[in-house]
Structure formats: structure tokens, C-alpha cells
């Protein structure tokens, strides 16, 4: 390749786990670096500042990844800047594509979130009730600012145009490798697609009853993972554990199922699913035996929204709408 692809990686409101997933590629990343020139990847790889990114000409970057959701004014600003500087923008990981764990904060008011974070957490000692302020005049002369909370969490594509999506919390490195290879070789699906194998978690799960010629039977039991230890070979849904394998992209090779943990849907919705939570309600509830079992499910989980929208609240139908009294 004559010229290297100019590559950028921006951390928005995430936890940097997705960046670790990219670093986890190890040798494959080193191979890819022959084709990539990292122009912005702070602070993981390159010591390039925001102002350097802002100074780049528009369309300078060939390929940019964003991980993390839009949670504050800083994320909002930087994602807009990155979009302007990039030819191709990839939303990378569950937060960037669906909202992620932090989006569940939208089910609470800002006051509740701040109370919890700066007052009630076990490790917090804040008797004077000092709360972070977006603006502060320090020693009477330094005007200091902090990014302020946005009214709600947003996915990247709710703010700017996104070219490709990669799901997962974090994305599994095998599929990251496949995605990076696809991008380097230019073998890409139409704009707006998810870079995915298109298989469900159940499809790649070793427990799938179809693999042992067993029929799926209606489930008459609801067990939470804290209440029991599932059989390590049988399908979790068949045992009564709520598992979102049927509606989740299986690019992870069913990693959680391999260690006896039910799927919680970080991989993102299967193609054709608009609302992950609603579709998982369809999948789970239809597999139950009777109304009594459905009642049991409702009673055992004290917050259904946080269960079915664990990674996808911002992208959900109701999550997109500002709810009454939230984030005042």
C-alpha cells in the first residue's frame, strides 16, 4: 500500500475497555499498524491533544473509531470535531452504538445520580457536600471549567452520522481483527451497517439444544443467577435463567455462556431488530410456559428496564424520548 491509512481513536464517555480490546489484538494490531498511521489516540497510544485534533483540516483522518457514549458537553464537542475531521467514522462498542451501562442513568434524575456518586457511595467522605460545578473561579483569578452533564445520554449516531457499528462490551478481539482487516482491505458492507457475522449468540453457543437434537420446551421456572448455579452443559433459557442469546449478535463466540453466565446483550441487536429490550421481552416471554411463570419473572426482577435494556437504553424506543422529570 502506497500511503498509510490515517487512523484516530477517540474515547468519549466510555471506560476505555474498548481501547483495551483493540490493544488485545496484540500481533494482529502490529501487522495492521503497517497499514495504519495513528494520528490521534490519546491517551492510550499517542500523546496528541484535543487542540491538535481540532487543528487538523476537515476530512484529514481516513478512519476514526469512537468508543463511549455522549454523557457530557466535552464528549459532545469532541465527537462533532472528530466527525468533521474523518472520512469514515465507526461507533465502536456497546456504549457508542447503544448507550451502554451509563445510559441506565437516564432512568434516574441528575440529582439522584449526583447524590449517589458524591454523597452516598461507601467510599465517599463528603460531609461538606462539595459537588462538582461546571464553572469555578479559583483564588479569585483562575476561571476553571468542567464539562457539564447533557440532559440525557446519547449514542454517537444520535449526534452525528456514523458509517459503521461494532457491538460488544468490549468487542471480542477476533471480530475486531476481522473488522480491522475488512477496513484495511476495503472489503466493507454498505454504509450504516454493523460489522458483524450476523449470527446470534445461540447460533454460536455450544449449549444450543438443537446441537444435541433436543427440542426447546416451554420453560416453567425463573431462576436468577444469584439463586443457583446453572448446569454447565444445558441451555440456560431451558433451565429458567434469563438469557438474551436469541436476540444478540454472537460475535463474542458466546464467551459468557462458556463460563456459565447468561448473555445480557452487549453484542447489540440482531439485524432487523429496532428495539433490543422489546425484542428480548418477545423472545423471553414467548418461551415461558404460562402466565404464572410470566408473573414470576416480573416479580423476581425489580427493574425490568434495567434488565432488558442493560446495554441499549439510549438506542431503545422509550430511551430516545425525554421522560417526565428526568435529568432536571
Amino acid at each position, binding site marked *: 500500500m502506497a500511503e498509510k491509512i490515517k487512523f484516530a481513536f477517540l474515547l468519549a464517555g466510555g471506560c476505555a475497555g474498548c481501547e483495551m480490546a483493540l490493544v488485545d489484538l496484540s500481533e494482529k494490531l502490529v501487522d495492521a499498524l503497517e497499514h495504519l498511521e495513528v494520528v490521534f489516540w490519546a491517551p492510550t497510544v499517542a500523546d496528541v491533544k484535543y487542540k491538535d485534533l481540532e487543528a487538523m483540516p476537515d476530512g484529514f483522518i481516513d478512519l476514526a473509531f469512537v468508543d463511549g457514549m455522549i454523557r457530557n458537553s466535552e464528549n459532545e464537542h469532541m465527537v462533532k470535531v472528530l466527525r468533521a475531521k474523518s472520512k469514515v467514522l465507526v461507533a465502536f462498542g456497546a456504549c457508542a452504538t447503544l448507550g451502554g451501562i451509563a445510559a441506565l442513568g437516564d432512568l434516574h434524575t441528575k440529582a439522584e445520580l449526583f447524590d449517589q456518586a458524591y454523597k452516598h457511595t461507601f467510599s465517599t467522605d463528603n460531609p461538606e457536600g462539595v459537588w462538582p460545578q461546571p464553572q469555578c473561579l479559583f483564588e479569585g483569578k483562575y476561571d476553571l471549567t468542567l464539562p457539564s452533564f447533557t440532559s440525557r445520554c446519547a449514542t454517537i449516531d444520535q449526534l452525528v452520522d456514523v458509517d459503521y457499528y461494532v457491538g460488544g462490551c468490549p468487542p471480542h478481539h477476533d471480530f475486531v481483527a476481522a473488522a480491522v482487516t475488512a477496513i484495511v482491505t476495503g472489503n466493507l458492507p454498505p454504509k450504516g451497517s454493523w460489522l458483524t457475522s450476523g449470527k446470534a449468540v445461540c447460533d454460536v453457543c455450544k449449549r444450543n439444544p438443537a446441537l444435541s437434537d433436543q427440542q426447546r420446551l416451554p420453560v416453567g421456572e425463573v431462576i436468577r443467577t444469584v439463586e443457583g448455579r446453572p448446569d454447565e452443559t444445558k441451555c440456560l433459557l431451558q433451565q429458567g435463567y434469563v438469557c438474551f442469546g436469541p436476540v444478540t449478535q454472537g460475535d463474542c463466540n458466546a464467551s459468557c455462556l462458556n463460563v456459565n453466565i447468561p448473555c445480557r446483550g452487549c453484542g447489540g441487536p440482531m439485524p432487523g431488530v429496532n428495539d433490543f429490550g*422489546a425484542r428480548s421481552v418477545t423472545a423471553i*416471554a*414467548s418461551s415461558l410456559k404460562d*402466565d404464572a411463570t*410470566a408473573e414470576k419473572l416480573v416479580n423476581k426482577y425489580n427493574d*425490568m428496564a434495567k434488565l432488558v435494556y442493560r446495554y441499549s437504553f439510549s438506542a431503545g424506543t*422509550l430511551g430516545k424520548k425525554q*421522560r417526565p422529570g428526568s435529568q432536571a
Partner: protein
Amino acid sequence: MTYSPNIIGFACQWCTYAGADLAGNLRCKYPPTVKLIKVPCSGRVEPEHVLEALARGADGVLIGGCHYGDCHYKEGNYKTSRRMTVLKKLIEDSGHDPRRFRLEWISGAEGKKFAEVMDEFTKELAELGPNPVKGGN
């Protein structure tokens, strides 16, 4: 102008939709608040449809299906019932009023019941006021 709720109704073609027809034949009076959508079976209605209607500003959503044992496809309405039990909790936990969503079994012979349900649902929604996602009416 007084507030009149906007209801989206999903009606099974074998029972509730016929029930709505009968309500007309019987000259039953009920408020003109419902927009009925004919579906092959109440089991065809997915939680996604209900959420979409609410998110787009419907004040109420009604699903009408056959009584237990009467389903044309044998078990469609049983599935509906299980799904909607869970969905109702999801709507509530997402910060919306679960009273905006209703599941009723109305057969093709219950034209009068259809009118009564519509009347009752409309009154209840009128008390609740407009759906807050519209940002006030």
C-alpha cells in the same frame, strides 16, 4: 378545546375486529378516540409496536384478542398474555404510566363489551391527561 385522548388499538381479525364491527351494527355509542389496526392475531403484536406507538405520542394503546381457548391459531393469545405481562412492567419501569397500555379479550359476539371498554379506557386516559412524551398538548 377539551382534551380527547388518541388511542391506538391492535385488533385480532377473528374476534376484536369483528367485535368492533358488531358494535357498529348494534349502534353502540363509544367515543371516536380509537384508531384500530387489524392484525391476524393478537400474537402478531410485538412489544416493539406498543412502545413505538407510545413513543410517537399515542395516549393509550389497546390490544384486543380472543378469549382463552378461542384463538384461531390455538395459542397466539396465550403468548400475547405472557409477553404483555412482562411488557407492562417494562413500561412502568421505564418511567411511563402502565395504565396507558391495556390488554382485553373481546370476542366477535361482544360488540357491547368493545364499546364499554373503549368508553372506560377513554375516560381513564382523559383523567391521566396527554402522553408526556409529546411535551404537553
